């Protein structure tokens, strides 16, 4: 089963988006090469297996590369227009305006407490359960208002999945962790294949294929996080939100997750919050830099292609943050 099997999108999807996907990998790889080498030196990580080597090893193929400079106009998945978030009287983030593109990995970076996780959680309405939460401005998903009164919250989450910072597998077997939500959604046929596909998609299949019925709690941290990714993609969402997915993991597990993101990009739209700038450089096509403004309210400072943001940041605050980290 190939990753680019397009049973995901129904009629009317944008073919251009699907084709541009692997191009992003090449572009991000090229732009991040310098940073990546530095990161690998500092992290002491073994060299990552490039996607090309994976293909050579007979793993799922992707569409042919497309030169990014001749980039097609990408479909926009999320449109944020002057979005602000209040918890009761307190304003957490203000005037965030950005577009998130399909089949891109978009990174949200910035210092702690600047609202990047808050904004991420707005994208699938996970902030709704926090008392006093209210959203201002407009947040559109494929042109539909996410916070419209008629928008069905559960439906939103079905299309926009989330993986959390700390791996949170259910106290069930590995198989049931993945099958549970799918069963709820009525996907009962071919569950074994679905589980296998999800585990392969999360690069976990080989490690657990012999113990699918054992408890998920017996897995290592990195495996649990990949399990969480597997169960999210098992229900075939449109978007995957990743909230600092590797921050609780060791460098090797982190590298595996980053590899994964490159593969997942082909099929899903990824938005990832990370406090690790090198990770953003390695993984993201576009990066958004969040920070606190003068009134200590989080806001979007700069948003651009990753290579441009890191090499020629337009805003001095971005430059300060980036150089501060390297220093």
């Amino acid at each position, binding site marked *: 089963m190939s990753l680019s099997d397009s049973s995901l999108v129904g009629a009317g999807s944008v073919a251009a988006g699907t084709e541009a996907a692997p191009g992003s990998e090449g572009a991000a790889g090229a732009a991040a090469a310098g940073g990546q080498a530095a990161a690998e030196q500092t992290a002491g990580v073994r060299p990552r297996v490039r996607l090309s080597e994976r293909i050579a090893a007979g793993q799922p193929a992707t569409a042919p590369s497309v030169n990014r400079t001749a980039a097609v106009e990408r479909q926009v998945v999320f449109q944020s227009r002057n979005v602000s978030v209040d918890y009761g009287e307190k304003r957490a983030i203000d005037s965030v305006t950005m577009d998130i593109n399909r089949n891109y990995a978009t990174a949200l970076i910035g210092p702690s407490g600047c609202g990047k996780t808050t904004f991420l959680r707005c994208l699938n309405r996970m902030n709704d359960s926090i008392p006093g939460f209210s959203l201002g401005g407009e947040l559109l998903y494929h042109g539909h208002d996410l916070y419209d009164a008629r928008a069905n919250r559960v439906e939103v989450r*079905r299309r926009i*999945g989330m993986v959390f910072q*700390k791996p949170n597998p*259910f106290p069930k077997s590995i198989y049931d962790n993945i099958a549970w939500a799918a069963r709820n*959604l009525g996907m009962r046929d071919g569950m074994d294949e679905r589980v296998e596909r999800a585990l392969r998609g999360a690069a976990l299949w080989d490690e657990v294929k012999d113990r699918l019925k054992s408890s998920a709690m017996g897995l290592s941290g990195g495996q649990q996080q990949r399990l969480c990714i597997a169960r999210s993609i098992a*229900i075939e969402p449109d978007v995957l939100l990743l909230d600092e997915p590797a921050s609780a993991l060791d460098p090797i597990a982190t590298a595996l997750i980053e590899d994964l993101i490159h593969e997942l990009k082909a099929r899903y739209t990824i938005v990832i919050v990370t406090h690790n700038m090198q990770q953003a450089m390695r993984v993201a096509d576009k990066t958004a830099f969040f920070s606190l403004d003068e009134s200590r309210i989080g806001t979007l400072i700069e948003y651009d292609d990753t290579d441009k943001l890191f090499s020629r940041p337009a805003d001095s605050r971005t430059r300060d943050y980036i150089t501060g980290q390297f220093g």
Partner: protein
Amino acid sequence: MSTLAPPQPSPAQNKRAVLTRLNNTDRRANRALKLLALAGGALVFLVLIAVVYQVISGASLAFDKYGFGFIVHKTWIAPANEYGGLTFIYGTLVTGVGSLILSTILGVSIGLFLSLMAPRRVAIVIGPLVEMLAAIPSVVLGLIGIYLLLPFIHSDIEPALHSVLGFTQIFGPAQGAGNSPFAAILVLTIMVVPIIAALTRDLFLTVPRELRDGAEALGCTRWEMIRGVVIPTTQSGITAACVLGFGRAIGEAIAVALVIGGVPAMHLSVFMSSYTIGSVMANVAPSAISSLETSSLFYLGAILLVMGITTNLAAQRISSRAGRIR
């Protein structure tokens, strides 16, 4: 002439001074406190043993006469000096299980409501109100049961249940004034629901936020999250709470005595007056005539004690095992 300050005591000397500052009075007082505390704990233990001993020795007369056959012997006729415990054991189990079923359904629902559904301000008000139900003295509950519940049960609920479920034999025709195990089950439910509700509410609040978030992020409805994540995670705790509730139900004497009808007979229908161990002890003990009768009551008490201790220990083991898994 030396202008130096007098030599300061060394740290070691200071420490010694501190230790010896713990003078004799302090040391004696420490020991006295420890002894007193130990005495408290020992007293608790001793009283328990004394209770068991007393009940068993009180039952010895009856046990000598009947042996273990008492447990399966049905007849209890005081004037004929013939005693057997089966009817009461049966009644205790029927009322216990009946109220367990009802109070589990209601109690767990209320526990879910208070922990996961209700907004905080509502839960803070409703929670204590539900706990108040447990504070009502059993004699008052029995009194209200007689005058408020029994007529209503007799005229409305019993006929309705009989017409719908009468084929099961459990819901026979309504009879008498409504004094029955069914009425006792309702009264016991009122007493046990707050226990299960409070325990399960605390239990559900311990389910980590991240597990619930994880379920919601997968596009599941609230009910699916509860059924698929919350309840499986707290299964042992719920069982322990139910076992505790069962223990409370079988131990209740006064409220049951007032509404159950006091007839030592076993019936399949829960609408026929009957008896439980607790209620017969409460009704008969004050006016027990012969020492054999009193001893038989103690025998029943011993059986109830065994049931009570077993359920209590079971509840403790279930919840401690759950704690170990986490």
